[in-house]
């Protein structure tokens, strides 16, 4: 019952926003992992450092012992992070025509093209705009 209620609340709050990204960034990844793996990390990796990827390494080393819930969350988080990375790779291609139209004359490199484009992307095609959302650029 309680988790049902939480789900309803979550849907209501999430649904109130605009088109949601179908990917996550690292801060959200941490939120998901904290909620689902917090206990496992405290139990098995309490002394591990975040840097050097040591918390992840520790979870892998202890995978025989960690909870199914944490394992499932880890798989989901990795998939969502990869999807964001893929969206970042895809943005330039999906938005190519609009970028050419709206940012003519901008020299490519160091995110210059995207930097220009994000200021005017409301005028771009829908597929491109979804990629901008999924890339986490809003």
């Amino acid at each position, binding site marked *: 019952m309680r988790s049902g209620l939480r789900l309803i609340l979550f849907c209501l709050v999430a649904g109130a926003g605009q088109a949601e990204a179908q990917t996550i960034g*690292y801060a959200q990844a941490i939120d998901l992992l904290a909620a689902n793996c917090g206990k496992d990390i405290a139990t098995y990796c309490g002394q591990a450092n975040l840097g050097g990827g040591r918390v992840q390494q520790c979870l892998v080393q202890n995978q025989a012992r960690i909870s199914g819930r944490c394992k499932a969350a880890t798989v989901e988080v990795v998939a969502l992070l990869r999807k964001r990375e893929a969206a970042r790779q895809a943005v330039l291609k999906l938005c190519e025509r609009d970028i050419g139209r709206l940012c003519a004359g901008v020299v490519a490199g*160091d995110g*210059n093209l995207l930097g220009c484009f994000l200021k005017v992307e409301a005028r771009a095609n829908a597929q491109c705009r979804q990629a901008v959302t999924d890339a986490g650029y809003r």
Partner: protein
Amino acid sequence: MNRLLLPAAIALTVWLAPAMAQTRLNSGQIVNSLQGLEEVPPGFSASLLRKQARDSLADPLRANPNNREPLSQQLEKLAQITVAIQFDFGSARIRPQSYRTVGLLADSLYHPYLLGYRFLVVGHTDAVGGREPNLELSQRRADAIRDALINPFGIAAQRIEAVGLGEEQLLNRRNPQAAENRRVQLINIGR
């Protein structure tokens, strides 16, 4: 009772959500703060800051923390964000409750507005304990944040430098032991 509470709880949640979203730091706010208008002065570097901090320890005029002028006025003028990151006591291990903040910094550094820039992580302590150990600890803590930004969060190593200033650049000199002195700055140091 439950029937009454449930709609009330939902209404409250929907009502509170926008307000909460404003108070919780998000990567958009960080990206805005880190976009630099101020020119980075020539000669400004992480190694220079480290040297200034070392020299500060030996300077008798800087012995009293209440009168200790900031080491680098320039530092405060550059585009930056200040965050609090929790570490284990006397250690450079980032506490899990602060993983999210480091992840948020990483998310911001991926934004196209900031992609071409390099950044300095500057760690500060309060004035509890010795100046020299504080300087050393703050360097290790700044390094720990840099390490985490690089792996697991995938920021290119050449974009990030780390400097610890110990208690040599207190935020609150009137109260050198105040918690607000313990802070981390992420500073845009140009291309």
